[in-house]
């Protein structure tokens, strides 16, 4: 496995920023980290980037311990923080050249790599521009290029699309998709959840320093949304249909919309139970013409999770 986080805990006095976080990621996985502000995403990323020491626990990048071998870990990771500054008196190519040298690349290697990276992030035409004069989106892309200069196995991207306009966000997303195709393991946190859902293989949801869910996007949605909300439309016999559904032990919170000839209810049964329910309804001559599940996207899930945190 490429990333292995074991019992990671970070405390600031009595405040627990991270509470026994465990997570494993295989090579080439794109992992999306979801959580409200202050949930512990940036703290986790800072520890993985060797910027912060954990109170207890450890994390391993390709088998190298963040606590005991930070220098080795730095060779393996490319880190892009949520907020970052640039050296305003440096040009784009000089900026990359400085970081290339900082990773111990030779001048010849840097000479070859820098044009390639600028091309990857669509900044070739800005090569000799001062970094300070670039737009926010361009700076973000340049910072991404910077994090790739030593060809890291793992990319840690903290809110890479924050503050970007829609066009810049799409450009950033396309670059990340390209990096995914290159086989990089990517850890990314973002509030642009639909985009995250689209590009991530796995999602982790963190709340109050605890990882409350981890898996692929569909599994997370199923795990977090609880009871399904099912909507049934019938031709007629609305009351008969209502009486039928009320008898089912998996059904609760039935609502009837007379005008639409529609019944909705929470259903906590499994998929097989749902098949049986439909079969029984048809045998009972209830004229059902559609049965749908109300879909919740990642944003709904996120809102549901963070609601509690905001209220607290």
């Amino acid at each position, binding site marked *: 496995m490429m990333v292995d986080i074991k019992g990671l805990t970070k405390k600031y006095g009595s405040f627990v920023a991270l509470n026994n976080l465990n997570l494993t990621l295989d090579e080439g996985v794109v992992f999306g980290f979801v959580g409200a502000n202050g949930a512990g995403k940036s703290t986790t990323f800072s520890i993985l980037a*060797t*910027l*912060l*020491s954990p109170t207890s626990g450890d994390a391993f990048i390709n088998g190298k311990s963040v606590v*005991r071998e930070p*220098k080795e870990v*730095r060779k393996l990771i490319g880190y892009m923080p949520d907020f970052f500054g640039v050296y305003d*008196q440096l040009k784009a190519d000089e900026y990359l050249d400085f970081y290339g040298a*900082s990773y111990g690349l030779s001048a010849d290697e840097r000479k070859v790599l820098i044009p390639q990276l600028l091309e990857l992030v669509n900044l070739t035409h800005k090569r000799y521009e001062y970094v300070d004069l670039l737009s926010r989106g361009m700076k973000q892309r340049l910072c991404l290029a*910077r994090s790739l200069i030593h060809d890291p196995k793992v990319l840690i991207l903290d809110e890479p699309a924050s503050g970007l306009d829609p066009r810049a966000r799409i450009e950033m997303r396309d670059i990340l998709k390209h990096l995914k195709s290159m086989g990089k393991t990517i850890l990314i946190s973002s509030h642009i959840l639909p985009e995250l859902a689209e590009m991530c293989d796995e999602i982790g949801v963190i709340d109050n320093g605890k990882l409350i869910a981890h898996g692929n996007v569909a599994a997370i949605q199923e795990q977090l949304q609880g009871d399904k909300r099912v909507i049934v439309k019938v031709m007629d016999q609305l009351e008969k249909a209502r009486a039928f559904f009320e008898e089912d032990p998996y059904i609760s919170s039935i609502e009837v919309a007379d005008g639409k000839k529609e019944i909705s209810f929470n259903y906590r049964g499994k998929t097989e139970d749902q098949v049986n329910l439909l079969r029984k309804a048809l045998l009972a001559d209830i004229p059902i013409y559609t049965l749908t599940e109300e879909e919740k996207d990642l944003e709904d899930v996120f809102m549901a999770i963070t609601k509690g945190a905001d209220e607290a």
Partner: protein
Amino acid sequence: MMERFSNPVLLKELKLRFRAFKSFSGLMFYLAVLCIFVAGFLLIYTQFSGTSFFRPNDSFTMFAVLSVLQMGLVMFMTPGLTAGAISTEREKQTLNILLTTTQSSTQIIIGKLLSSVAFLILMLVAGLPLYSLVFLFGGVSPSQFITIFLLYLVTLVAIGSIGIMFSTITKKTIVSMIATYGAMIFLGGITAFFFFIGVSMEQMSMGMSTATPFSPITYFWASINPGALMVTILYPEMANSLESVVGISLPIWVVYLIFYILLTAFCLFVAIRKLRANMKTNR
């Protein structure tokens, strides 16, 4: 081979420093102060003597005052150049990215220090043509001249290290700046004050007894004061006077050198240790 010894932070800092307008304006201000002083000195001395010539003794006086002035400028400018070295990176949010590179903490700190020291040395070198005027009129030996420049170098590296240390351990540049200027005032002013108190107490006790004076604490305050060392370099007879007051014959430059080298080493050690998060093995 060169790649092994190159320091990316040093090269970047030099590039940024010499592209910034404030570096040139700072250098210009420094040279303007020296020019005004030298021109004024020459004018006043030739006017007062009424003979329009400059005696070797006058030349030495100009050298002495110029040396003190330059030391003052070095002590004034070094904290300004070094006390923001790390904290400015932190404030500009460039430090975290720098710390995730494979550069060691030592490389980063030394790079920061050397870039500031290089700029200060450039200032001293830029002032050399004005300084060398004293050789036109005689009265100053090259060895005195070299010793004074070595004193500048040791002092500015030490104050620079203090600045880098405070810049690393404090979060804000303004706090680091105040702490560094405070340390500089202690070394340049408070030590002199303690020395004079020590001398006064020694003289008071001498009045009551005939024993040979022995005051290592007073000697120590004199030894770590840049002004005191400069005076003993410029006027060697002052070293004898000091010896007669404190009763210690060891030249003060020895203690000065040891103290400032240890101070530099301590400050750099603290800065290197505190730069990154305290992992188990972080060097």
